[in-house]
């Protein structure tokens, strides 16, 4: 092409570039699953920065004994908003957003089953988050803790409207989550490509299907319980009001009936992501597909019957203590099956340590440790000693960051080239990974020790003679080592959009259908709906002489 011609071409492209208002309008009114998925993820990223900043403030407050960087009341608001935000407005949107983007592509569909319901779900989630943050306009956020035990939510102890905004925001975003769950079920059950039976579906959509089942069963009880809180506060009802024979314990049961499946909602999709990444970067098929699939179902069902292990110290009967301890320990069986299958997938494979695989390795190691402290806490007598201590804080951050977040980062590094057509910078990814890993160890490792030394969670300061100061200082240093890794991650996302290496359609030589279309995919995903004969349709397409369906 001649130089003049090329300049002309560029000029016409610049002229054709629509105004930013038109672009914004296009995104805001979009019902395309890919755009909605990206908006979910952007929402999650923004809230991640907010809730991360809250965590840094709390860590700075705890760096010295008797430090007074923030007041006790502000500290209470900070941990409430940090927990609520991270679970509902970072974890959930990122997981639902990633699934929104990837699942229709992986099952060879052109969109979700209900595109407009999909858009509704996103906007409900976003505005639910904004409603929760509206509580700051009442003079301060709620100071309840993310599980908001009664009677802290009663009018007596929470006089401002902050608690109402909090409850209303969670109700609204809960409707959004249920909308997403309904949509995933309908999409995955009815819209798989011809030939993709449930025995041949990629593993990620399979985990999203069971996550959706959990969403449908676990979120409505939270909605109902939050409505009861609103009725207590606004209409003078007595659900959680012990003075009129209401029951504060009922709230705990209802909340944890939601709360425990919730943590599996945050980890099952991660199992799916890891089960996509490890085979591709080990150049093998997923080991024990059927067992993995059954283990996913088992986790989804068992997790619905273990909620009261969060409540061992309220004084249930011995029988209930034993039941909930044993049921909780049962979860470790299907989880163990998954672990060994991932290891067996890697065994003898040609492993390449690109960034998605690096984060999977981090996930495997960290989630294992978090799982082991989980087994410790499931034992009721052990839990009697350490309930509501920093040991618990250490444990659940270990599974939520070491599990959910490492897995999400594996997913980001794996699918970013598909969504943008550019590779993320491997250099930045390595910096991000090692800063995160080291910072994460330093932040949450010492919490197990300070917890065993008796430090309760949620205290805003402590006396110098307790022996907790050193461990808290290491935690704070760790938090400030972690912080830049998130900055690098966000910068990598932005920088690579322009400067990343062009990815091509299939940069990882992968096996599933999302890599069969262009990067980024067109609005309609596929020119022709693909026909599937095995669990690795793209392998079949690339190796017509030796397709997988011969062996399955």
């Amino acid at each position: 092409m001649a130089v003049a011609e090329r300049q002309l071409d560029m000029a016409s492209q610049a002229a054709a570039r629509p105004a930013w208002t038109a672009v914004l309008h296009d995104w805001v009114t979009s019902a395309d699953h890919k755009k909605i998925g990206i908006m979910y993820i952007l929402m999650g990223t923004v809230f991640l920065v907010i809730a991360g900043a809250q965590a840094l403030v709390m860590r700075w407050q705890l760096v010295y004994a008797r430090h007074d960087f923030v007041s006790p009341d502000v500290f209470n608001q900070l941990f409430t908003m940090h927990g609520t935000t991270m679970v509902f407005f970072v974890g959930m949107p990122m997981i639902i957003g990633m699934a929104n983007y990837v699942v229709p592509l992986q099952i060879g569909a052109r969109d979700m089953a209900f595109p407009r319901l999909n858009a509704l779900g996103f906007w409900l989630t976003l505005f639910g988050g904004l409603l929760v943050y509206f509580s700051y306009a009442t003079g301060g956020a709620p100071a309840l803790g993310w599980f908001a035990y009664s009677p802290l939510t009663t009018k007596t102890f929470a006089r401002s409207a902050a608690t109402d905004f909090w409850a209303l925001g969670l109700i609204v975003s809960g409707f959004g989550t249920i909308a997403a769950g309904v949509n995933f079920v309908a999409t995955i059950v009815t819209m798989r490509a011809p030939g993709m039976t449930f025995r041949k579906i990629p593993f990620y959509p399979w985990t999203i299907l069971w996550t959706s089942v959990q969403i449908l069963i676990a979120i409505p009880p939270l909605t109902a319980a939050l409505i009861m809180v609103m009725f207590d506060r606004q209409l003078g009802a007595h659900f959680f009001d012990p003075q009129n024979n209401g029951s504060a314990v009922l709230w705990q049961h209802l909340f944890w009936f939601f709360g425990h499946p919730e943590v599996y909602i945050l980890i099952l999709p991660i199992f799916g992501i890891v089960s996509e990444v490890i085979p591709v970067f080990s150049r093998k098929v997923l080991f024990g597909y059927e067992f993995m699939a059954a283990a996913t179902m088992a986790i989804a069902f068992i997790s619905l019957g273990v909620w009261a292990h969060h409540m061992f110290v309220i004084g249930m009967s011995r029988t209930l203590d034993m039941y909930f301890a044993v049921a909780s320990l049962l979860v470790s069986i299907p989880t163990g099956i998954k672990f060994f299958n991932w290891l067996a997938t890697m065994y003898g494979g040609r492993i390449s340590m690109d960034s998605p695989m690096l984060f999977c390795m981090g996930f495997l190691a960290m989630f294992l440790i978090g799982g082991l402290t989980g087994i410790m806490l499931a034992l009721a007598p052990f839990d009697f000693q350490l309930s509501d201590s920093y040991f618990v804080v250490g444990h659940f951050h270990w599974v939520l960051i070491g599990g959910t977040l490492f897995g999400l980062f594996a997913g980001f590094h794996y699918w970013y080239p598909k969504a943008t057509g550019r590779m993320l910078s491997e250099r930045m990814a390595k910096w991000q990974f090692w800063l995160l890993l080291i910072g994460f160890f330093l932040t949450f490792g010492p919490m197990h020790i300070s917890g065993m030394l008796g430090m309760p969670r949620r205290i805003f300061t402590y006396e110098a003679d307790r022996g907790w100061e050193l461990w808290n200082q290491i935690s704070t240093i760790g938090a400030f080592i972690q912080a830049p890794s998130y900055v690098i991650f966000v910068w990598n996302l932005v920088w690579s959009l322009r400067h990343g290496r062009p990815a091509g359609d299939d940069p990882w030589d992968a096996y599933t259908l999302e890599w069969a279309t262009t990067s980024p995919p067109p609005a309609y995903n596929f020119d022709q709906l693909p026909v599937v004969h095995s669990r690795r349709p793209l392998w079949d397409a690339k190796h017509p002489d030796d397709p997988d369906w011969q062996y399955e």
Partner: protein
Amino acid sequence: MSAQAVALPTPPPIEPERTLPPALWGTIAFLVSEGAFFATLIVSYITFLNRDITGPTPAEVLSLSLVAVTTTCLLSSSFTIHAAEKALKRGALGGFTFWWAVTIALGIAFLAGTAYEWTGLIRDDGLTINTNLFGTTFYTLVGFHAFHVTVGVIVMLTILGLALRHKVTAQQENAIAPVALYWHFVDGVWIVVFLVVYIIGR
């Protein structure tokens, strides 16, 4: 070349999968979440049964004769909406409109009965949502059920309006089915509510 002469393996033919349409799967998934919602309210009702220190109690104020009538209305509406669906499948649009209208009338009769019951409870018995635990749980459970009946009646009225303007045809069976499924669900929930509130709890 000889390598190309070897025929590539041909995959077995693909059997088309038979499943319900997306709208029905979506409705089923939605109703599962609704079931979880009502289960929570029912569990709360049972938890607080007979725990009040002050009256009125269910035995004192709930009238079984009134609720027997409203229950009959609601349960028979499940049969009439089924008749409407069958008429639509046959292409008998007149029959569809008739049975659909009967279903709406039965739904409205149920709501009228509930309104009458609540008026009596509030005015004569002084039972409101903040009187005691019975009031709290009763109005929440029965109220949310009545809210679901109301939503169903509004949706069915909309469809009736379309039917009267001859805009509903036998091809729209798949659009009608989710509404009917929802209505059966609301009826089913009422059976449980009726048993818990008016039979066991009274």
